[in-house]
């Protein structure tokens, strides 16, 4: 009766839902149940390993680690139907992360033996757990490596699709198993290796000797060096099949806490695979795309490479990367792509008559791009002395900009519907004109100029004479000093976009039209936070353009930002991630990405976090209203 409930529950939860009823009944029979009030710690990092896999029946938990400098790194939030404690349970070592209940939480506990048996007998279960868990873990360790070296090999391969055999081309030094201890040690000295694999005449590995064996079993025991090497070898070899996918090797490494696994093909030794090999495999994609971009000489050559960029998002998501990391990597790659297009165009058209700077703004300017977004770009060129020069520059950059626009379009960047592009003569101007634009917008804040400043003030240089953009930034900072009226207009825009906080049980969603009952994650989400942080930055004359970088600087100079910095960051990461996941799903199902999500489909934890984000925006809006009291209408 009670167990039926467990079975019914597990039937809805991957990977258990893939199992037969009889199997589920067996699992349910061993299940126990625990309750953790909100705020209590369930597993401690470095604490004893978990003896159980916990499946959340109700509530939610936060999984996080503390770095060496005591910084909290959130790995994941898990909610109903999610599991935790798998890795430390399988490893049987220490617990890898802290797990803390963020709501009153009930979980079912499935004991270690049951799970290990499932992993051994059900590949679907193994694959599921590895996909959802190990990547997140690997990601953390891999990141450390990633920081050190950006240069590893090419190819677009993954842990779950690459057979072990493909990675294990490393040659292993072996010796026949009928040699003596002395002969074995001579081979090891000659090759300067610390261990030696012994194989039969058929090439089947039967044992391994290590330096330690010579110390512990030969020297200290006074054994004859003329004895057979088999008398000191250890025969428990950890092996993996060459045809299995790489995650099998990874699982073995984790389970036995080792760094190498021997690879065998039909029983015969084929090579060795190391932890390092697997890390490399994980790290390949973004780098290989950049390399591929760099090697292209034509726009046509860039097109197929640019199509791969979306795949990186899915890869990074799988690896559990934070939204800000995903957008940074994507922006970096997109930047390279744009630079390459400009490069190629410059070569085709010949050198420009004067120096110029290619700037980008909007989400591109903030380095917050996910999937291909509209082109938002402009050209600032050098101030010219004569009319003739000016005319020459105008003609050149007009052709130049249209070439680049077409190249970007071919590589998947749609045109800007509002025509904020360098092809628009208005946005292809010498520096002095740009300065005038900015001055006018700030001194005459009508609706149109407010709208433009929201978009253009997030500009950043991407190519060419960077100093032009810097000079424009200097100019902006100067003209904004004590421009309380202009900032007041921006404040009004911000507080008009009210977060849907009044509704505790449901969100305020679109009331009609195609997206009825949907939540717009851009307008009622990302933009609210971006606009707030932009206002603070303009108040303080901050040069940074990305929301999180701005926050980081503001923390030291802006009272409101200081108070809410951490919460804003958390909310921003969360909403961005939700949006990325949503758009990726749409792309994968073949539809165009949009910003509309169905609030009903959010998990309880997601809803809760979303509501907290809205409350946060609301609180900050109150403080903005307070500060701009006299200017709010």
């Amino acid at each position, binding site marked *: 009766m009670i167990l039926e409930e467990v079975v019914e529950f597990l039937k809805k939860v991957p990977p258990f839902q893939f199992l037969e009823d009889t199997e589920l009944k067996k699992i349910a029979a061993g299940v126990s149940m625990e309750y953790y009030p909100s705020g209590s710690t369930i597993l401690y990092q470095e604490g004893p390993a978990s003896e159980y896999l916990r499946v959340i029946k109700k509530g939610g938990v936060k999984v996080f680690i503390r770095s060496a400098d005591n910084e909290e790194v959130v790995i994941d939030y898990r909610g109903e139907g999610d599991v935790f404690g798998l890795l430390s349970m399988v490893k049987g070592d220490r617990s890898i992360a802290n797990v803390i209940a963020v709501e*009153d939480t009930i979980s079912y506990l499935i004991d270690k033996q049951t799970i290990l048996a499932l992993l051994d007998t059900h590949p679907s279960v193994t694959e599921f757990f590895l996909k959802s868990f190990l990547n997140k873990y690997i990601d953390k360790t891999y990141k450390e490596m990633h920081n050190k070296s950006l240069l590893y090999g090419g190819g677009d391969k993954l842990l779950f699709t690459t057979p072990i055999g493909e990675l294990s081309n490393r040659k292993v030094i072996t010796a026949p198993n009928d040699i003596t201890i002395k002969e074995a040690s001579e081979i090891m000295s000659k090759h300067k290796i610390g261990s030696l694999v012994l194989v039969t005449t058929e090439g089947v590995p039967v044992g391994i000797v290590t330096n330690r064996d010579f110390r512990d079993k030969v020297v200290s025991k006074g054994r004859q060096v003329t004895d057979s090497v088999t008398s000191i070898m250890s025969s428990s070899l950890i092996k993996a099949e060459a045809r299995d996918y790489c995650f099998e090797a990874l699982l073995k490494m984790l389970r036995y806490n080792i760094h190498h696994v021997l690879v065998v093909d039909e029983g015969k030794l084929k090579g060795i695979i190391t932890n390092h090999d697997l890390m490399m495999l994980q790290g390949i994609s973004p780098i290989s795309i950049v390399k591929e971009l760099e090697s292209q000489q034509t726009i046509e050559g860039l097109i197929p490479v640019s199509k791969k960029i979306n795949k990186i998002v899915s890869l990074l998501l799988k690896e559990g990367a934070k939204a800000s990391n995903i957008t940074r990597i994507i922006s970096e790659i997109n930047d390279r792509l744009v630079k390459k297009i400009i490069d190629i165009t410059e070569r085709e058209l010949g050198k420009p008559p004067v120096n110029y700077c290619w700037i980008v703004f909007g989400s591109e300017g903030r380095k917050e791009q996910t999937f291909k977004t509209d082109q938002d770009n402009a050209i600032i060129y050098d101030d010219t002395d004569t009319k003739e020069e000016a005319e020459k520059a105008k003609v050149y950059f007009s052709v130049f900009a249209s070439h680049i626009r077409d190249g970007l379009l071919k590589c998947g960047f749609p045109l800007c519907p509002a025509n904020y592009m360098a092809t628009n003569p208005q946005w292809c101007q010498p520096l002095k004109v740009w300065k005038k634009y900015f001055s006018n917008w700030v001194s005459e804040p009508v609706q149109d100029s407010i709208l433009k400043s929201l978009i253009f003030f997030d500009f950043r240089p991407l190519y060419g004479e960077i100093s032009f953009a810097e000079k424009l930034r200097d100019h902006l900072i100067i003209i904004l000093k004590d421009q309380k009226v202009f900032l007041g207009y921006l404040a009004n825009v911000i507080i008009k976009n009210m977060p849907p906080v009044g509704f505790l049980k449901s969100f305020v969603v679109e009331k009609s039209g195609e997206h009825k009952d949907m939540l717009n994650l851009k307008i009622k989400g990302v933009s609210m936070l971006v606009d707030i942080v932009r206002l603070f930055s303009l108040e303080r004359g901050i040069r940074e353009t990305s929301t999180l970088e701005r926050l980081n600087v503001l923390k030291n100079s802006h009272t409101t930002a200081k108070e809410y910095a951490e919460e804003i960051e958390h909310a921003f990461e969360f909403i961005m991630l939700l949006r990325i996941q949503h758009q990726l799903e749409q792309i994968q199902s073949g539809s165009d990405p949009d910003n509309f999500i169905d609030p009903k489909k959010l998990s309880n934890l997601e809803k809760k976090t979303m509501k907290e984000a809205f409350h946060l925006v609301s609180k900050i809006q109150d403080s903005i209203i307070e500060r701009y009291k006299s200017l709010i209408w």
Partner: protein
Amino acid sequence: MKIKRTPIIEADYVVVDTELTGLDEKKDSIVSIAAIKMIGGRISLEDKFYRLVNPETELKKESVLIHGITHSEVSKKPGIKKVLSEFSEFCSDNIIVGHFLAIDMSFINRDMKKFFGTTIKNPGIDTYLLYRCLRKKFPEQKCLADLLKDSGLYKIAKCFDIQITDMHNAIKDAFITAQIFQRFMPLLRESEIETTDVLLKIGDYSKGADKYSQSEESCNF
């Protein structure tokens, strides 16, 4: 049985519930006994005991309406003697836990005496007594304070957001009681009630039977 001083979160418990033909100890009898084990705060869903009993007395109409067990269902079941011997073995030396446990134990021990000349002497905790004590400790905790009028099992369960499926089924009720006890554990800890000897001081059913009717609440330990 001697009361050991064990941390509450490590002790072994057996959570018990019975269904009866009525509340009159002289006339009524046990219809079913259920028990489920807990190791500290962990409910072992597989480690449970559930027996329907062939009652000595005729099932009363009113009680059939409550627990839904009919005469034909129990007539072929074993008698109370056999069930009790299995039950006492199941309890081992665990601490017994139940809601209004004194009532269950009075029926169980009445029959234990009759058939075996002895009683079940395991220490026992009444979740109702724990609840009364916790209510005083946490007057601001809504799910505790709201229950002044009705301290029944389902009312408490509801307030703690515990799922109630079949009412008045002994095994389900034992499961609900176990979950209530589970919810109480963090609160006990917060009140610095951390070991079983202190737990028994406030929750011992054998001392609490008369407390049910007392209007003055006490919570001394």
